[in-house]
């Protein structure tokens, strides 16, 4: 069932090129919904527990021992679900794209297919292949359909991604050879028992290579520019799922393969992650461009994911995965509101100009949605962000307490910049505004796809916030699988 998520997406990418233009949007929507449905039923089929479920396992490149092997585990299905939701909402928010429509959805669905593939690969070579497939479409999606400084943003993003994947590739090749050069299966590589010295230099290579895509400070600079340059649905997708690819790689490849390296570098990684949290938050506070505020907040929130990974204990790691899911939903929501609901109607993202537009009265739906999304993302209890960050902080307190405390300060900064954004854009006192604005023509009403997308994301976040066990019951047992045995032993749990 889960394999269909990948097949359908790639088939859909081909399909939208062939069908008449009038049908393209619907085909894309059907494909995205079908992907989500396959992911959902696949997740139910998987059922949870400390196991991984093999989906496909075929020989592929015999001389190198590469197999076409797909496998589902708790982390994988969680992120597949996230991808499914992000894809559906992404298509909904792409509804008004007119320029080169078929190509747009072809790239869009290729990207989605690659992302599904990464989350389901059990073979490192295959994982890397899907990882790279997901990178190229990003370039075109931003460079063709983007906005502000799109050439620069797209090229920067792609070069950062490829620099990262070059590091990963070196690490993969070295691990493959050191493990005997006969298999690329993640589990085989994880059980290869590399020497400690090898792990110590290979770990940072692979970890940093992946983490570039997760917005690890100081390699995060592609993220704000890329997000701002991208068209709204693509920023939603970038922040929503593509950044998760990097975090997933760090979690699924770097940790299990090189546990000794992870333990050796733990403090430094945690320090980088915490720097990202605090720095991203502080920079977000000073931004004048609404989209940049969200862009930097993404860096800050992804810092929690990386901090969770760096804790190397079960609570922190589960928190990291939960935060990946939560941020995927919330970043999508925030970018959607800022880029589509607000910017496409007001044609400005400048906070000072938005201040004077009296948006609370003129777009109550956007104001309400952004307030909910902002509250959720700053960590208000009842929404997914709270549970996730709480897990990460508890995990951090157990293994890297000092970093945990600083990250706690980061939460406060998060409250500050989010409140500031909500207050400035939507709730500035109407008395300050130019009286002439009130009488100007009203903005176009919000369309059905827009409303559907916003509701879908907000309710998902609320659901996870109220009942996190839905996901945690999948995520936590995953760390008991054989893949993480080395890490469990090394870190002592």
């Amino acid at each position, binding site marked *: 069932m889960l394999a269909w998520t990948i097949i359908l997406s790639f088939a859909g990418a081909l399909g939208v090129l062939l069908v008449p233009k009038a049908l393209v949007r619907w085909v894309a929507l059907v494909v995205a919904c079908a992907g989500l449905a396959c992911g959902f039923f696949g997740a139910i089929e998987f059922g949870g527990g400390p196991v991984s479920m093999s989906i496909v396992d075929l*020989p592929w490149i015999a001389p190198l021992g590469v197999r076409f092997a797909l496998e589902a585990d708790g982390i994988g299905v969680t992120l597949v679900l996230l991808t499914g939701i992000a894809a559906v909402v992404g298509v909904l928010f792409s509804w008004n794209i007119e320029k080169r429509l078929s190509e747009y959805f072809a790239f869009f669905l290729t990207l989605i297919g690659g992302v599904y593939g990464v989350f389901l690969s059990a073979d490192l070579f295959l994982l890397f*292949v899907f990882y790279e497939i997901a990178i190229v479409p990003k370039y075109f999606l931003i460079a063709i359909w983007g906005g502000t400084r799109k050439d620069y943003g797209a090229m920067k993003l792609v*070069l950062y991604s*490829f620099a990262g994947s070059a590091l990963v590739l070196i690490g993969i090749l070295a691990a493959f050879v050191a493990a005997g*050069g006969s298999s690329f299966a993640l589990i085989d590589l994880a059980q290869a028992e590399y020497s400690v010295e090898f792990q110590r230099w290979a770990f940072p290579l692979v970890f940093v290579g992946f983490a570039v895509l997760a917005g690890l400070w100081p390699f995060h600079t592609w993220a704000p520019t890329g997000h701002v340059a991208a068209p709204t649905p693509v920023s939603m997708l970038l922040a929503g799922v593509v950044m998760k690819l990097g975090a997933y790689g760090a979690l699924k490849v770097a940790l299990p393969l090189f546990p000794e390296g992870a333990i050796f570098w733990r403090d430094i990684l945690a320090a980088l992650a915490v720097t990202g949290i605090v720095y991203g938050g502080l920079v977000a506070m000073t931004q004048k461009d609404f989209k940049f505020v969200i862009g930097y907040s993404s860096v800050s929130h992804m810092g929690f994911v990386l901090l969770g990974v760096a804790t190397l204990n079960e609570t922190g790691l589960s928190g990291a995965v939960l935060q990946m899911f939560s941020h995927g939903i919330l970043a999508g929501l925030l970018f959607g509101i800022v880029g589509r609901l607000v910017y496409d109607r007001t044609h400005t993202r400048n906070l000072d100009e938005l201040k004077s537009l009296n948006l609370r009265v003129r777009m109550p739906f956007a104001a309400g949605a952004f307030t909910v999304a902002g509250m959720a993302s700053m960590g208000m209890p009842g929404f997914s962000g709270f549970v996730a960050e709480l897990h990460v902080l508890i995990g951090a307190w157990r293994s890297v307490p000092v970093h945990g405390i600083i990250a706690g300060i980061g939460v406060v900064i998060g409250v500050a910049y989010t409140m500031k954004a909500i207050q400035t854009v939507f709730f500035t006192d109407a008395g300050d505004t130019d009286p002439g604005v009130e009488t100007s023509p009203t903005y176009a009403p919000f369309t059905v796809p827009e409303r559907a997308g916003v509701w879908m994301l907000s309710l998902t976040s609320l659901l996870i916030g109220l009942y996190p066990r839905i996901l945690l019951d999948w995520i936590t047992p995953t760390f008991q699988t054989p893949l993480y045995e080395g890490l469990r032993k090394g870190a002592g749990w």
Partner: protein
Amino acid sequence: MDYGLIFLTLSPEFVLAVAAMAVMGLDLTVLKGTSRIYRMTAAAGVMAIGIFTAILLLQYYVKDASFPLGMLVQNPLNLLVKKVILFVALTIGLLATEVRFTRNVGEYYALLMLATIGMMLLVSTENLLLLFVALELTSLSLYVLAGYNERSRESAEAGMKYFLFGGMSAAFLLFGFSYLYGLGGTLDLGSLGLALSAHAADPLLSVALILVVIGFGFKLAAVPFHFWAPDTYQGAPIASTMLIGSASKVAGGYAFLKLLLIGFGAGGWSGSGETITGWAPLLALIAVLSMVFGNLAALAQTSVRRLLGYSAVAHAGYLLLGFFGSESDAYHSVVFYLTVYALTTVGAFGVIAAVQGKGRDLTLRDFAGFSRKSPEMALCLLVFILSLAGIPPLAGFAGKFYLFAAALKSDPGHMGMLAAVSIGVVMSAVSLYYYLQLLKQVFVADPIGPVLRVKAGFLGRSMILLLAFCVITLGCAPGIFLDLITGAVISVSR
């Protein structure tokens, strides 16, 4: 000596030679005075028939054989490489019909085929003397092909540069061969390898090695013997560029690999101190220089063909890394990569040929808006360029990955090889920048002037589509071709 067997073994080459004569004869007699398109089509048709027959002969008729002194060795691996060369030459011959730049059609096609015969001989000989003769047959045809457009200064320059560098490197090569003969006392590569591995380390051997590397380095356009490449790639008639950039690389690279593995002894490097330690450091240096210089120089190019010329230099560097693998890995990775690279290169130049006609040299900017005018050709170009950049799931990625893995596997724990491979990986990330510059014009940029139009007819388009299909298939299922190589390698490894 059994002359019948020689004839049987050489029958594919013989058929091609007959086809070459036939093309010239037809063009001078029956087709004289008819319009160019007829002559082109007829010549391409005869060439296609010749090549088809040769491939069929290779497949069903030619038996494994080995003649004294390694003069002619017919084994499954050689046959496989020959088939690749023939297939590539066939696509080039058919694509060449789209570029009607010359009035001397018959001679042009005859030269294409003569060069192909040279390459086939180059692949199937393990004798120093015949190696040199085959190399010269190839090179002499290619020199003429490069300078064939008599009305173009650039073509003349391309031919001249190729000839001067080629002539000089051939002299070095011959000089190197003479040293090898002096040291080993034999022309046969197999016995030479044995003789040399028994030999004590000798400075003369290093001299011979350097001379040989110069000779083949030129063929592969590796730094510092690459000076001809950008100009020749840019100025030569495009079908000649395709042949120089693809089939000639396949033959040259494969012959070079055999020379090193057999002639210098398979275990002739690294570890065991008393045997020949010669070629590894030298080749690694050349590989690294090629990867770094080729990629950096390509960054600055605006002419598409020049850009591909520098990218060819970089690819020669990647290729050389595969030489360090164990014997089986080296054959696997190098043959696979050469095949993939040849198909991709012909495809990329094919698209350029399809839009260029006999027009001027194309810059990156000329491709602005191309995807909106001809989406299917733009998509093919995307496939070829991304394959060159090494993006999965295209063939270029599988090929490069295998080269890197082979090099690393040869000597785990050796940091030197890891460093070379790391440079290769990082440089392919750099290369993405310039490949994307082209794709950006094709897909992203808005046209400024008139958009390029595909002038190629049905034949040219279908060849390009076929090549794109091959590149995708070899990337998604490299097993298909790797299994063939595996079967062939098992039968030749001793």
